[in-house]
């Protein structure tokens, strides 16, 4: 290959600027048929009055037979600490995290 050919073919290849987290490589778990008997984590992101909303959600989930565990991020402005994420993953089958404003 001459240097000129090499240059031209290189122009048809771009370098991926992203994190290369290929979309949908990691398939989601199937949705459960029922939440009865499952443990659901509720993550409070520490926005004001988010707890009122989550209290109500908890009542609905418990009425449907789920066990609820509550978690709280130190601040809504930063990602959940890695230990908290592990704790949720280890102790729950389902998690509900929502942004409120």
């Amino acid at each position, binding site marked *: 290959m001459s*240097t*000129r050919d*090499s*240059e031209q073919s*290189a*122009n*048809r*290849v*771009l*370098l*991926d*600027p*992203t*994190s*290369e*987290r290929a979309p949908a490589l990691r398939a989601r778990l199937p949705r459960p048929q029922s939440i009865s008997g499952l443990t659901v984590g509720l993550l409070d992101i520490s926005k004001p009055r988010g707890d009122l909303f989550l209290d109500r959600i908890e009542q609905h989930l418990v009425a449907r037979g789920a066990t609820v565990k509550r978690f709280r991020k130190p*601040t*809504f*402005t*930063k*990602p959940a600490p890695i230990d908290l994420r592990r704790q949720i993953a280890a102790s729950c089958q389902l998690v509900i995290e929502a*942004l409120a*404003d």
Partner: protein
Amino acid sequence: MTEAPARRQFIAFVKRECPTCTLVAPVLAELASHLDLTVISQDDPTFPPNLPVTDDTNLDLSWQHRIETVPTVLRLRDGVEEQRVIGWHREEWTQLTGVRDLGAGLPDWRPGCGSRTVDPALAPGLRVRFERSRLHARRVELAALEDEVEAAFARGWTDGLPVVPPTEGRVLDMLEGTRRDASEVVAVVPPDLVECTVEKVAINAVMAGCKPEYLPVVLAAVEAACTDEFNIHGLLATTMPAGPVLIVNGPIRREIGMNSGINVFGQGKRANVTIGRALQLVIRNVGGGRPGEVDRATFGNPGKIAFCFAEDEEGSPWPPLAVDLGAQPGTNTVTLFPGEAPRSIVDQLSRDPESLARSFAVNLRTLHHPKLAMAFDCILAIGPEHARVFGAAGWSKAQLTNRLHELLQIPGEELVRGAGGIAEGLPEHFRDVVVPKFHPGGLLIVHCGGGAGLFSAMIGGWVNGPMGSQPVMKEITS
């Protein structure tokens, strides 16, 4: 000259096209009779005639030895280069080879010609051929009919403007702008918390339109953005209209051609716009921070494409911002501030510092809301014609800052919820106290802008402190 000549090897790089190489061809023949000499020809293996010549028309050897000029003669000891001479210079060749009376009848000195490895038509392809293994990013091959610019849009890599396609050649050129290793991790970028290498920053800098000499500024900005103090995650996710604002101090401003003067916050200067844009593209592409996803801004602002400028240090009556923040004078730094769009402060009549400080104060009072205080920082960008008023009166920057803080002590009864018939405001328990608009250190002063116009500007911040974002300065290293 203690070693025996027999233990040494010599390599000469030449090309037929070069008149100096033709001139020294007899000298090479003479040296070949005394020394272990390999002659390498870049363009014609029959040149020089009557000598065994190694064919380097594919330029592998020339690239490997980083030859920039022909003729170049290397002296190797045990296979390791210990010296080289460039062009024809009788004295240097004699010193290199230990052979006297070289090139009788030739002039003492002739410059060489450019090596084919630096031929502008060949160099980019050569760099890709020889150095592509330094690059670890996933290769995205384009379909035959796919337009490169449209391909970047289609893959979601752009901020809404076209990007420069990040080819291997362009990214390798960009990496020449830093001494840091391409695979070194610069920062962990929110919101996806991805380890971002120098290479990924370089790819996004290419896309933003940066030149290689801007890369160190972009790298420092990415590092600063991803600190816990600056908290780019929260700044990205907030509904408020703020984004990272980059302020560059130090000699690098001039070296890379940054604008600190006319239209300082506006369009038109490549370094300003592309450095700011490169940071935003890193956040978007590497961190995964995209509007409508983690970026929840109600309005955003046009500066979220790019908001980067330099301070006018030379024209300022005061030390620059970086020195206020603790840098040694003359250090190259980039300071990140979580800022909204700039807002003009017009005062064309004040000629004494007290009057102008009062003008600033009444404008600063309105930041985000005249009844909100302490929660937000602000950059006060003072234009040259305003700065001259303080400079002529002998006011230091600290004096101005202190006066502004004095003028911005606000009775709580004006600020509490319901006061003035406005529900927005501070909680009732502030009613009987005096509340400062800014916390100490919350007002950052920079000097910039064009030389004509009695104007200054304010750039309001997002929520300050550990819950929000604090200005972060980083030294720019090569």
